[in-house]
């Protein structure tokens, strides 16, 4: 299959790639670039494990083609922490036990970041609504919500 040139900016690095048009953004990130922190849970856009931020919006990367991400800025879970400091959401997930097997965790953290960046004063109900596209099977969500609520407070105060 004929490959197409694309230029993606992922976590501040720019990648000039040749990819088949049938490859999803998820496959491009994981298989071509080698950023495997973003997970594939359903391939149908229903579980949110593959959530990344594209030009400021949360996107399920299994539902977007790699060629459609040309010239776009993408943030993945690998891009959240700085060299010596976790993002407050990552820190909160750690401190509050907001993960168990961890497979859905990158998607939850990235989706939470996209939402809290836009809605720093979100209520619990709004957070529950916003994260309704992400499935976690281990935690029952109690500690995820606690983590996101506490991260929101830290982010507001910094």
């Amino acid at each position, binding site marked *: 299959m004929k490959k197409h040139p694309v230029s993606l900016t992922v976590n501040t690095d720019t990648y000039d790639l040749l990819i*088949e048009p*049938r*490859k999803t953004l998820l*496959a491009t990130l*994981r*298989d071509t670039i*080698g*950023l*495997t*922190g*973003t*997970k*594939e*849970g*359903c*391939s*149908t856009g*229903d*579980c949110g*494990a593959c959530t990344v931020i594209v030009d400021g919006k949360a996107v399920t990367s299994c539902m977007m083609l790699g060629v459609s991400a040309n010239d776009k800025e993408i943030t*993945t*879970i*690998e891009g*959240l*922490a700085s060299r010596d400091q*976790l993002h407050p959401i*990552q*820190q909160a*997930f*750690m*401190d*509050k*036990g907001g*993960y*168990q*097997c*961890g*497979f*859905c*965790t*990158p998607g939850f*953290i990235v989706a939470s970041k996209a939402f809290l960046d836009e809605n720093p004063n979100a209520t619990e109900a709004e*957070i*529950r*609504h916003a*994260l*309704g*596209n*992400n*499935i976690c*099977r*281990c*935690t*029952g*969500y*109690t*500690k*995820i*919500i*606690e983590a996101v609520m506490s991260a929101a407070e830290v982010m507001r105060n910094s």
Partner: protein
Amino acid sequence: MSEYTVLGKSVPRVDALEKVTGAAQYGGDVHLPGMLHGKFIRSKHAHAKILNIDTSEAEKLPGVRAIITQDDVESGRRVFATDKVLYLGEPIAAVAATDPDVAEEAADLVKIEYEVLPAVQDVMEAIQPEAPHLHSDDTKDGPARRVLRTELRKLERDDSQDHSARIAELNAQMEELADEVYYNVSAETHSDAGDVEQGFAESDLVVEDTYVIPRVHQTYMEPHVSVADVESTGKVTVWASTQGPFAIRSGIAGTLGIPLNQINVIATTMGGGFGGRFGVALTHVPAVLLSQKTGRPVKIQMTREEEFTDGRPAPGCVIKLKTGVKNDGTILAREGLAFWDSGSVSGASIGSTIRLRGVYKFPHLKVDAYGVYTNKSGTAAYRAPGTPQVAFAGESQLDDIARKLNLDPVEFRLKNMRVEGDPVPAGPNEPKVGYKETLQAVADAVDWKNRTKGPNQGWGVAIGDWTNGCGPGGMFVSIHEDGSARIFHGSMDITGTDTALAQIVAEILTLPYDEVTISRGDTNSAPYATGSGGSVVTFTMGNTAKLAAEDTRRRLLELAAERLNTDVESLELKDGQVSTIVADPPKSIGFGELAAYSLSTTGGPIVGKGSFARKPSTPALAAQIAKVEIDPETGRIKVLKMASSQDVGFAINPMAVEGQIEGGTVQGYAWATMEEMQYDEGGNVNPGFVDYRVPTTADLPTVQSVIVEVEAPDGPFGAKGVGEPPITPTLATMANAVADAVDIRITELPMKPEKVVDALHGNGK
């Protein structure tokens, strides 16, 4: 438990950093140079003869490296379907190609001719003579025929007198019980205690019902995946996302006839399992076969759709249940008959049917259970396998009885619960248990006695019991020259167990938690460890860790006695040092110094060893109370409150324990209200998250977890298994809350809104 410094504390987990940064390596993250991608060619019918398999077109596709069928399995063990397929999605062949999309294209090009056969999906239809018989025309006796046949066999063997009249009578009675001739039976189990007929005769109230519980999928978020690399020497390496790497090793060896010492299984971080990630059959063996054939590493990763059609979910079942009680609420007798939908292979959790006895004093009990073949994939464990199903039946029926007798459902249960020393029907006497404490704790947590409710609101209570498993495990603990300790073992971390092990070792060695690190070896390097399921890890590997840490302590004390010119008895471990207990002047020496010194001793480095297999487990109870509100227009069940208590013996890490309680409770809630794998004659019809609903953040409020600690005598520091119990009561908790809210008893799960509406209008079950 304030005497501990690390145990009983909610320290962050040992794997926290890798999990929140995306660094953790799961099965699908393994990428080897030259790696090919495998895809299955699957049956398109639920029951059919395979007339022909034509791979010629697929082989021509550029990038395809191999296509294998059962003909390629030299050992002859069944890996792929050959003459007949028994369920939609059953693997018939597999292809390896340079790219996953090419492999998928190739799979579509394989042409299979079928002769479609009638299929059966419902267990009650499958036992009938007119149903398609999946494996043979053999029949089994139902419970009453079984009793008659037992007598018949006895009389036939007895030559001492003439029994012909009675034999003729028994034969005639068996003839009359024609509806007790069951076809498609995969397995059966029977238990009894006392005399149920007498028990029912003595009862003031006898209640009888049939309960239907659907097949549900464990829905671990990471689909099955494995990467196999077979070297030219024949050595096999498999990267597997699994709960039991050693079982995968022996499974591959047994299936393919490869010597055990030629197989190394490297277990990756696991994206959930809940019991569904033990099986060897799904991806590991086909990946090894494809790698053998191509000489290249091969990855097979199932899609979510494949998980639903060819996963190994929890069995659904039909339970006929009868319970007799006195008017004062004394339970006398219970009789249960269960039909478990085992799919196309035997193995449904029928052994759990005995848990219909709950934790109550049933003087009379009779339980009969049958596994039944249907045209579905086989089943596997799911969190306390079998128990949520039977607890749904048992606890729903008790709730109806409490309502009929106008008894408080908590008091009614407390009155009949067993305590230490009580006989367990068809089992040994109770050891030390905390049944009453656990139920009382959740009742107190919601202020049960003073509960109030508005219109269409109701409260439901239920319990579920379980006992953690036990199994062999080995472990090493080494002390390094910096004074830190490292644990080395082969057991899979399931959501916090490595953390519990590190806490145990830190406590015994008096080290700070972050001075203990933990590594998991592969099956080539690590000592054997039992699979991580059955709430086994904290109990088994916790005991192993205790032994390994105590062995390490012994060596530290020996070395310190040499260095400090004293004897071992005068020394103790304190704050990461070995110090004199009573001495003037006090003397002490650090672990780091002892580790460095050990390298020049004749005894050598400090390596503590722990090896453990078995100690008696202690039963654990989970108890829940939910408050719900029903919307009579839409049938939606809104959970206003969900409290969940559990006797965990001792909470080594309360935050991790709460996480287990919360997660299990929500899985149970989902089974009660939304989850159901649906089948028609063609097979599974809802293989995806749009049609198979699982809960999200929007569905449920916070779960209030209540930790109860009734020490397990043989658990490490009193701990019991934690992972499985919290799912066991919730199906009934929810149904009982609905019954209390709108006075309808739903006996067939899930309680989807349309079913609730139907029941409200008197149309449903």
